[in-house]
């Protein structure tokens, strides 16, 4: 009996099956028709047909963030591939494992400006972890295995694989063999922390008088939320999470002092500014955290653990750098602390917590509830209550994103899905769809605004096709809220192009796509509307909440100031 042979498209499908792929998010086109034909033949991998390739990348991204698995995108050459660029950049900035398979014109036409030809490997080069130009069908299994390995190991990130049409030629058949070993001599991602650095770090942690643990998205990516929690409890340290790290330590944990940075809590930013030791775990001292780097935490010894050496001492110099993967370094730290026999200065720690609690008592997130107009903060708080804090929350980008981050305390990692690094409007809905596919029995809610939702609104159609019963909660302020907030604060209220003067009727829009639309205008109607939304579990619900358009996000760091120079309310400084 002759061995089964496969053409290029079938090799892709077989390799993806071997790599454990359940979903591909994509859109067909000329150069990948042979691959789509191979997908048609099988039932192991479900292809989700989006309405725009950008949404495919965000769906794969949301799926990856929620599950920890590699998100897979399939696009045709030219415009299909270039439409993926924003989604690739989004995944790159937040270190999300993703493999984007792009078609390409046949090899003999490459460079001729052929129909739908774009050098996607060139276009995406600055925003990928790596990329592959496949030139022979026999390479397909190995290249895909390498792509998955690179995308998901070390500091994860997107990998682009370009497949020219002739490589997928259905007439050419090959053996299929998945490589056993994908070791790459130039790439050694996972590392233990250097014992000497671990020793120095533990010394600093145990002698600290005012310790803060500052943890970022790396804790979530490395699935080390439990070890982080253990470390926080062992040291009884205050812990702040970055926007990307929310949920790594439960938002309900007594040692959690809130998010830090531009819209962080007073207690988190104050604690950072007054700390004598800062332990940064999988965080990268982003400019939205540090504010003015010259004024950043001048008295602190900075211990920085990261799997990516380029993140260390990039913006803020680390006194004790530890290069290593958190799933190795955190156990190393915990065991070194246990073995040290040293205990922390309880007296100093009590003073430190007293100080932190005084900052907490200022209740920086308090706001005046609206009587005639719905406050956006109230919507998030009520949503938190209605979901018992258990829903997957995806967000778009803007004021609603910050309100969600501030007023929905995330209990677990991977529950909060947002574009933190790139700040991609249009991310929220497709990301929530990716989450819903992964967890059909869980609530997947997209918190959005009237600006962001319109950037990928066409995906309402995809939701109908695959019965993705996500919930969309739009904090509709009839304007680009964050832009307008900056214009209010920094441009004397000159609202240049921040109004949305021709909004659609979102209820009718949702209904026209076959979904449920609910509109709320008055605070008195909010509870009932949320209850109604929550009672519908088999259909997509679009909740259009008309919120107070004058509301700003506070606290807010003051431009060029220190980490704790903040506005607490309009005209009130910390």
């Amino acid at each position, binding site marked *: 009996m002759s061995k089964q042979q496969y053409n290029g498209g079938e090799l892709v499908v077989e390799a993806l099956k071997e790599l454990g792929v359940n979903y591909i998010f994509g859109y067909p086109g000329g150069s990948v028709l042979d691959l789509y034909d191979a997908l048609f033949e099988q039932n192991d991998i479900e292809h989700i047909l989006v309405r725009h390739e950008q949404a495919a990348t965000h769906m794969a991204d949301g799926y990856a963030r929620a599950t920890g698995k590699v998100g897979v995108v399939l696009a045709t050459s030219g415009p299909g591939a270039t439409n993926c660029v924003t989604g690739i950049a989004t995944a790159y900035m937040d270190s999300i494992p993703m493999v984007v398979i792009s078609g390409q014109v046949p090899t003999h036409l490459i460079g001729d400006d052929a129909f739908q030809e774009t050098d996607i*490997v*060139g276009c995406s*080069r*600055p925003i990928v*972890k*790596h*990329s592959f*130009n496949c030139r022979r069908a026999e390479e397909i299994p190995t290249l895909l295995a390498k792509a998955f390995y*690179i995308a998901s190991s070390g500091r994860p990130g997107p990998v682009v694989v370009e497949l020219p049409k002739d490589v997928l030629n259905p007439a050419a058949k090959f053996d299929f063999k998945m490589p056993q070993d994908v070791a*790459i*001599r*130039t*790439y050694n991602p996972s590392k233990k922390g250097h014992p000497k650095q671990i020793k120095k770090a533990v010394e600093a942690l145990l002698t600290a008088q005012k310790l803060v643990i500052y943890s970022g998205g790396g804790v979530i990516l490395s699935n080390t939320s439990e070890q982080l929690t253990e470390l926080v409890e062992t040291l009884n340290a205050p812990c702040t999470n970055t926007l990307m790290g929310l949920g790594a330590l439960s938002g309900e944990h007594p040692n959690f002092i809130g998010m830090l940075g531009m819209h962080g809590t007073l207690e988190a930013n104050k604690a950072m500014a007054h700390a004598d030791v800062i332990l940064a775990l999988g965080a990268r001292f982003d400019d939205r955290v540090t504010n003015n780097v010259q004024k950043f935490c001048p008295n602190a010894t900075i211990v920085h653990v990261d799997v*990516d*050496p*380029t993140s260390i*001492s*990039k913006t803020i*110099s680390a006194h004790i750098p530890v290069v290593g993967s958190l799933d190795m370094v955190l156990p190393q730290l915990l065991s070194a602390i246990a073995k040290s026999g040293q205990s922390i200065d309880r007296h100093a720690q009590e003073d430190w917590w007293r100080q932190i609690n005084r900052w907490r008592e200022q209740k920086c997130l308090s706001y005046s509830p609206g009587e005639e107009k719905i406050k956006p903060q109230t919507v998030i708080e009520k949503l938190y209550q209605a979901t018992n804090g258990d829903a997957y929350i995806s967000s778009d980008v803007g004021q609603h994103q910050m309100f969600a981050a501030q007023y929905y305390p995330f209990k677990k990692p991977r529950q909060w899905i947002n574009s933190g690094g790139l700040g991609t409007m249009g991310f929220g809905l497709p990301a929530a769809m990716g989450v819903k596919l992964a967890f059909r029995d869980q609530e997947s809610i997209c918190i959005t605004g009237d600006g962001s939702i319109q950037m990928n609104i066409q995906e309402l159609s995809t939701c109908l096709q695959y019965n993705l019963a996500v919930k969309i909660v739009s904090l509709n302020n009839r304007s680009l809220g964050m832009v307008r907030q900056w214009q209010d604060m920094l441009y004397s209220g000159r609202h240049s192009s921040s109004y949305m003067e021709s909004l659609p009727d979102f209820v009718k829009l949702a209904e026209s796509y076959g979904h449920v639309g609910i509109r709320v205008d008055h605070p008195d109607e909010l509870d009932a509307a949320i209850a109604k939304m929550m009672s519908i579990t088999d259909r997509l619900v679009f909740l259009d909440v008309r919120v107070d358009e004058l509301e700003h996000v506070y606290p807010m760091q003051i431009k060029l100031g220190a980490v704790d120079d903040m506005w607490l309310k309009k005209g009130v400084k910390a």
Partner: protein
Amino acid sequence: MRRILSILLENEPGSLSRIVGLFSQRAYNIDSLAVGTTDDASLSRITITTQGGDRVLEQILKQVNKLVDVLKVIDLTEQSHIERELLLVKVIAQDEKTRAAVTRVVDVFGGAILDMGRISYSLQLAASTEKLESFLDTLRHETDIIEMVRSGAIGLGRGDKALKG
């Protein structure tokens, strides 16, 4: 401060563009760049001269190292090393006096005359970048330069240690 980086990387299509792209993307300087094969056919070696303080250089080294195609990267200027750059230059050499002067300069610097035209000489000098500058300065005193091309510096660490795959 001037630095010379030696990068050993996979000899694959696109790997050079990743290096060049990284430098432009992150706003690092490239003063010169030389690339060629090595004794191991699967590896290329790139030499880049750049400018930067310690902090910038540390980031450059880390960022280059992070590229999946890169096997090793070192800062040659951190150690005792030898470096050479090749210069080809065409100068006016029309009258006897200028020809004699140019020939003398070439002799003193240890260069060579590779070609003669009706009114020109084409010269070669392989030397340190600094010596090339001084050679060019001296030539300019004697005659006019018509055309020139430089290879960019390449270098090796001194002694028995090697940058290898």
